[in-house]
């Protein structure tokens, strides 16, 4: 009796096992480190166990689940098994859903997966890089590129129209320059340089606008979905790509718009 009482006392005095809870759960349930919580695996509150909150964590941002509320808790595996395993099935306490393996040499991933799959045929072994979520983002990336191309085509038409108006405005100036002997090549070069400058300034303005709005857009969506996920990131590669696309378009639009003036008879530029 004394031993039993001692065991019971020890069990009652033993601290509850620790768990980590997500920041979102802590905020919603007004929990903080040190609080004791009761978790249940059944909606009606059956099969419960008490735990102590030992930490609050920020869930790893997951683009596939950014709209989901991250109401999560992390338990030690034995605690989870003790809480959730089906008592009528002895094998259930021995089963887990997934084992994550980090290799010392990541280059061995596929060889390791093949070896393990052949030696333990009842498990499915897949390199993390093969998970199909990456395919989803490759498709979304292609979708964004397609939309960018359409936007650039539309913008080019407008740029061409504006350059045409601008060329028309300078018809007499061009006529005078041709009369005083400035060659067509020089005029064309000046138009090309001007078009290039306009396109680069336009692209730079676009990049500045993107950089300025980057924080605001990320802040809006991060607040809206309560996530640390970064939605927009203006990288140097993207900025360079914008300039590389814009510059030839500006040059092309400038030359195309001026070409009609340059190939005309010089007197016709003065409406003579």
């Amino acid at each position, binding site marked *: 009796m004394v031993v039993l009482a001692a065991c019971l006392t020890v069990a009652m005095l033993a601290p509850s096992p620790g768990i980590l809870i997500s920041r979102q759960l802590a905020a919603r349930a007004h929990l903080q480190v040190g609080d004791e919580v009761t978790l249940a695996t059944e*909606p009606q509150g059956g099969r419960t166990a008490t735990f102590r909150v030992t930490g609050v964590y920020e869930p790893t941002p997951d683009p596939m689940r950014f709209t989901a509320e991250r109401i999560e808790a992390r338990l030690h595996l034995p605690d989870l098994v003790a809480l959730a395993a089906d008592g009528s099935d002895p094998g259930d306490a021995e089963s887990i859903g997934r084992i994550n393996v980090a290799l010392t040499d990541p280059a061995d991933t596929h060889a390791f997966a093949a070896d393990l799959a052949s030696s333990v045929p009842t498990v499915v072994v897949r390199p993390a890089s093969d998970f*199909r979520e990456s395919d*989803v983002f490759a498709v979304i990336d292609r979708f964004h590129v397609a939309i960018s191309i359409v936007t650039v085509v*539309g913008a080019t038409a*407008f740029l061409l129209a504006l350059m045409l*108006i601008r060329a028309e405005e300078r018809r007499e100036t061009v006529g005078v320059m041709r009369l005083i002997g400035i060659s067509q090549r020089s005029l064309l070069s000046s138009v090309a340089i001007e078009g290039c400058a306009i396109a680069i300034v336009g692209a730079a303005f676009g990049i500045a606008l993107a950089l300025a709005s980057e924080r605001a857009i990320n802040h809006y969506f991060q607040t809206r979905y309560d996530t640390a996920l970064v939605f927009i990131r203006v990288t140097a590669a993207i900025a360079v790509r914008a300039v590389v696309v814009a510059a030839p378009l500006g040059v092309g639009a400038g030359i195309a718009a001026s070409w009609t003036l340059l190939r005309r008879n010089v007197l016709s530029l003065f409406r003579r």
Partner: protein
Amino acid sequence: MTPLALAWRATRQYRARAVLAVVGVAVIGALLFDMLLLSRGLLVSFGRLLSAEGFDIRIVATQGFARIGIPESAALVEAVRRMPGVADTAAIAVEAGDAGVGAAHGHVTLIGRSRASASPWRIVRGADLVDSAPGAGCEAVVDGRFPSQFHADVGGSVRVLGLPGGASALPPIDCRIVGVADFGFSASGERTVAMTMDALQRALGTTHGADAQVILIASAAGADPNAIVRAVGRLRPDVRAYSNAEVVEQFNRNGFAYFRQISTVLSTLTTVFAFLLVATLLTVSVNQRLGEIAALRAVGIARHRIAAMLFWESALLVGGGALAAVPLGAALAVGLDRLLRQMPGLPDGLHFFVFERRALVVHLLVFGVTAAASAAYPAWLAARLPIAETLRREVVG
């Protein structure tokens, strides 16, 4: 001469820039039209897929739609079948499996269906599953691409083995293919074999009935699906019942957010873009034609007619572009939809861009407002032009 005729003359006079402006508006308009189609496309398409199944309520084990078995599903199906307002029920179990025909074999999705008057798939060839006595021969309905991949069509047979845990040493069972069906929610790369729940149980090698993961309910004509949902909730508080409208709403909240956001952002941007560019073109064009406009005013054409002319010019440019944008946008939507449908695991029948009359009306309204707004500043500029001073400056200049 009417303001429209004057605008038409001006547009024809500056033909090249007008054509370029119309092309620009058409391309940007096509993008706007597509974003309007995208804004509700998935929802409409998803709703249609759900409706096509012929059932308007579904019961699942947990919140969300993870494939988890519903405990004691057979008893629940019987209880639901007796509820007032319920016309039909079908319990569905989905498992991974292997199928083989001769030398051809591969992974398939096995679907088990309980006794029901109808199936949640559409038969395109052959016949549907017939409810037979337990232990009767296995009949199977396969998806449309199965016959070409496995070289087996209606009347042929297929060996089927359930692999719920990834591997099995059990022998496969033989099934006779009785029909080919369109499984709305199957992915394009997914091969599907549907059979009765009893046959699926044999393919899985289990002795007890397989737990259904979804129970579909068709409500009777005139019955309120929400009342049935509430009744199921009272009967079994541990499961979740959703009407189709609730499923679509949940999809709208969780699965669809990205495309709704991008469509809102791009619609706004394209509208602003179109406004800025048409307004710039018209303003520059008016500045270039100040002498011409002053001359028109000098010969007695009233301010409001000059303003109306500029509004008509804007309407011709934006309207022409907006109309051309509709067929262009439709063609672009086909390409973009094909591109997005390359996402893995996407149901075959799900589309991102779905035409709705509402999208066309919004598109035309947005461009109507854009045309009016774009012309406002140039019209104001032209209306307050000092006639004599402008003419003198133009002539001296």
